[in-house]
Structure formats: C-alpha cells, structure tokens
C-alpha cells in the first residue's frame, strides 16, 4: 500500500478517537433531551466542573478555600492528603448526582410545562452559574489531571503496523490515551444501553422519554427520572472531562467541547443514542480526513474549526431530523 494512503488511514483512526469524545458529550445532551425536552447548554461546563472536582478531590484541596480564607482570614488550602483515583472518581459521581438533584429541585421543578426556549435559557444560566461555582470551589487556575492513564505514542502499534507499508512508512502513530478513551467510552455506552434496556429504571426512563402522561399513569415519578438522567449526563460528562482533561489539562476550553457536540447532534438527531455515537465518529473522522485531503493542501488548513458545522448544515438541509432522529410528524 502506498504510504500516503496509509497515512490517510492513520488520520482516520485519530479522527475516530476525537470523535469518541464528541460522541460522549453529545450523549450527555441526548440523555437529558430525550427524557425532558431540555436542551442542556451546560453539558460542556458539566464536563469541566466534573474534571475540576475530580482533580480537586484527588489533590486533597479544600473546596471553597478562597472564600473561607477571605471570610475568616484563615490560610486553608489543602487537607494535606491525596485521594486515590478510584475513590475520587466515585466521590465525583456522588457530587454529580447531588448537582443533578439540586438542579432539578431548585430550577427545573419550577419550570415544568414551560416553553422549550425558557428551559434552554435556564440551562444557559446554569452553565454560567456552574462555571462560577467551579472556580469558587476549586480555584480558577489550570489544573492537571493525573490518573496515570497510559499516554504517548504506542510503540507496539507503530511496530506492528510498520510492515503494512514500504520503507517510507513507519507504522501508525496512535496515542495510547486515545485508545484508552475509546475503550472506556465503549464500555460506558454499553453500560448505558444495558441499563436502559434491562433495568426497571431504564425502562422508566424510556417510558418518560416516550410520553409523560402515560409514564405518570403507570406510577413513574418524573422528578426522579429527571434527577436520574441528569446524574447519568453528569457521569458521561465526567468521563469526557477525564479524557479531555488528561490530554489538554483541566481548563476553561474544556467547556467548549460542548460546541463541537452541536453539529454532532444535528447530524445524529437530538433523540438518538446511536445517532450521537455515529454522529460523533463521523464528525471526528470527517474533519480530520477533510483537513488531510482538501483543507490542508488547498484551503490553507485549520478547516477543523468549521468543517463539522458545514457538514451538519448540509445534512440538515436534506434530513432535518438528522441521520438517525425520529421523524418529526406534526400531529393534527
């Protein structure tokens, strides 16, 4: 095989990895949207908040220490211990569940039956609030997230694949972290699907997504299910936050991955879990491949910034419900 084609394949594989992250964030959107019709603008900030919380807990930071110090003139910063990664992840899940409960209790409970645009505005408010609370809790400096995940080019893959090409091909260059991220994401998605298909609460979740009135009549508490989906979205956000944070540090830009999830949703449809996954992968691979074949050579590069939106726009024109979304049929 010619080297340029093989490098094209490598580009595609790396795009796939980026796509996994997009898919994860989009998945968080879909979970909440399906069950409550809320388009959660704060999903990206939730990923940032989750990653900050995880990092803060692991490093034994005292939450709100700036605030406490300012109020009482103390010099608190750290508990002086380190929490093992697994324990810290579990604690962060608890924090995300608590956040889900608070969001439902303090905000959306009072907005039941409101127009979608109002719910959307509420999530914008939530996004900024969460950003502020995150800074207040853990400080605003860039944090690192050291979960001791394997990182850097995988020599094994490079050596094993070098034989595919001639002398000018040295094997696929693939980041180990990307491989781990893909596997974790795959496990997460499988677990989510199993949960929604085979458990009592999964069934209740699907029921609520389908018809609120009918769900109530069989004894399902909408509030409970909404807390549940926000918690699940929080867990998905945590995983996305870990992967992104491990790669590029835990900083504000993390919350912007939500913007990349938008075209993914347009492509996959807002109500389809498989759509979110496939959409994420298509965009991840598409933007890399486009950059490699057309963007770089002919358009001066940096086409990743807008390619996803263009692609989504084209799909929208021909299939407004996305590639996998349910057909929108107006009821008369």
């Amino acid at each position, binding site marked *: 095989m010619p080297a340029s084609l093989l490098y094209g394949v490598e580009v595609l594989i790396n795009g796939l990895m980026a796509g996994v992250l997009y898919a994860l964030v989009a998945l968080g959107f879909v979970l909440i949207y399906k069950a409550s019709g809320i388009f959660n603008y704060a999903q990206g900030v939730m990923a940032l908040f989750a990653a900050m919380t995880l990092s803060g807990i692991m490093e034994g930071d005292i939450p709100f220490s700036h605030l406490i110090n300012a109020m009482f003139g103390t010099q608190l910063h750290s508990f002086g211990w380190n929490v093992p990664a697994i324990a810290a992840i579990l604690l962060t899940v608890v924090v995300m569940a608590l956040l889900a409960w608070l969001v439902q209790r303090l905000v959306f409970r009072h907005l039941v039956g409101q127009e979608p645009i109002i719910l959307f505005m509420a999530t914008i408010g939530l996004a900024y609030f969460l950003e502020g609370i995150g800074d207040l809790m853990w400080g605003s400096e860039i944090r690192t997230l050291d979960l001791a995940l394997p990182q850097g080019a995988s020599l094994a893959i490079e050596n094993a694949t070098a034989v595919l090409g001639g002398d000018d091909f040295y094997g696929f260059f693939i980041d180990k972290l990307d491989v781990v991220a893909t596997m974790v994401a795959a496990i997460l998605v499988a677990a989510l699907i*199993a*949960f929604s298909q*085979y*458990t*009592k*609460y*999964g*069934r*209740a979740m*699907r*029921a609520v*997504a*389908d*018809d609120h*009135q*009918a*769900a*109530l*009549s*069989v*004894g*399902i*508490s*909408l509030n409970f299910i909404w807390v549940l989906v926000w918690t699940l979205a929080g867990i998905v956000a945590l995983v996305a936050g870990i992967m992104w944070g491990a790669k590029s540090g835990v900083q504000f830009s993390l919350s912007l991955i939500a913007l990349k999830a938008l075209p993914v949703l347009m492509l996959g449809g807002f109500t389809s879990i498989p759509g979110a996954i496939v959409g994420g992968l298509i965009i991840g691979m598409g933007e890399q491949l486009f950059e490699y074949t057309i963007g770089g050579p002919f358009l001066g590069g940096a086409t990743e910034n807008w390619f996803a939106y263009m692609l989504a726009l084209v799909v929208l024109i021909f299939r407004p419900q996305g590639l996998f979304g*349910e057909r929108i049929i107006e009821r008369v």
Partner: protein
Amino acid sequence: MMNAVADTQASSVGYTTADGRDIGEVILDLRNITLRFGGVEAIKDISFDIQEGEIRAIIGPNGAGKSSMLNVISGFYVPQEGEVWFRGKPRPPLKPYQVAQQGIARTFQNIALFEGMSVLDNVMTGRLGKMRRGILAQALWVGPARKEEVHNREAVERIIDFLEIQAIRKTPVSRLPYGLKKRVELARALAAEPNLLLLDEPMAGMNVEEKEDMSRFILDVNDEFGTTIALIEHDMGVVMDLSDRVVVMDYGRKIGDGTPDVVRNDQVVIDAYLGVSHD
C-alpha cells in the same frame, strides 16, 4: 335540591348484586369536590362513592366534567375544594404517580400509550410498580432480580392472553388501529394489578363487535380479579349492561346517582340527555 333522585346513600356496608356478586365496603369516597379552571367550574360540589368490587359508571353529556372527575381521582387534577377518601382515610393531595402506586390504574380518553414501544413493552411498563428489586441488582441482573423478571413476564403474558392480543405482542403500538390501542392501554393498566381501575370511555370510536369484546373484558376483569372499576361511557346500552351503579353528571353537577334502572327512569336525567334547557 334537584328532585327525587334515588340517591343510594353511601351505604358503607356491602350489598349483593342481582347477578350474585358481593359488593364490599366503600373503597373511594369523594366528598364535596369542586374543581375550577380559571372561571370555569368543571366540577361543582360533587359527592359520590365507589364500593369494593362494583362497576361504577359515570355518565353525562359532553363537557359535563366526567373526565375531570377521573382526573381528580387519579391525581392529575387537584380540586380546589373537597376531600378524597381512600380506604377509609382522607387522602392528602397526591401526584399521579403516587396514586398509581396506591393501586389505582387508569386509561385515557385520548389514549396515552408509549408509541415508540412494542405492545409487550407497553404492558411490561405497566408493571414497573410491581418491580421491587434495587437499581444495582437490576443492573447486574442477579438471582432474585432475574427471578422477579421471570415472574413479571409470566404475569404480563397472562394479561396478554386474557385480552387476546397475543398476535400483536411484538408490534409497535404506533402501527395499531384505534380499537386495539384501547385494548393495549387496558392491558397496561391491568398489568399493575390495580384494586381500582379507572376507564375513560374505553369503547369510544369502536364498532359493535369491538364494543362487545371490550364489554366482555371489563366484566371478566371485575369478575375474575375482583377489580373495582369506574368507567365513563356514552353508550347507554353498554352502561346499563355493565354497571352496578351510575353517577350522572351535567354541567359539572351531579344530577343522578343510583342503579341503572333508577337512573334511566329519572326525569332530570332524561331531560339532561334530551337537551331540555337548564335554568
């Protein structure tokens, strides 16, 4: 006062029907219920009760407030005045899902099914309240949870057989004709093994044959499972055949209450149905 409507006074002791079924104590007692929507009074100071084991019909012209009454019982509407007594105790205002958890199941006038699910899944969902195993056991599919699932499946299959919808068990509900949807909705309500079943026009829009089937199912449910049933129905023939006692509503008021025979011969009721002007 209206006139000499034969008012079966809330006889808290049971009675025996003409066809020999034993009717028990009052299970649900509505006391002076008033429900308003803005300026509209959909229900005006209505009281009646439902006794264990009976089939209680609610009839009345369009807009009389029948569905509103059912919605009050099932917690979808909260009345401004009055009390709902359930099993001898005043019931605090409950959410619809809490009412369902107390063993009161219902169907809707406009059918509320899970359109994206199969018939089987719809009926299974009706059983959610019967599933006891925790979230973790469910997720991990461990021993007792699995046993429970098997038991639930059997119960659901029994109901599906009972309502003769085996042939469509895997069919997506959205593809079913209206009459069958009504039947699936009944199946889902039955899956909860309710003590009290509320049916809002279960036969509306059906042809004669479908109505006969549905009537038979309702009688069988009452007979075989001892389920207490309150149903709204426009077809007087059906009401007379099925029900033990009838409440008649008109413009939000109760204008009659008694056995089908008594109600049928009541002048106020006849006037309401013939559209005699109200004063």
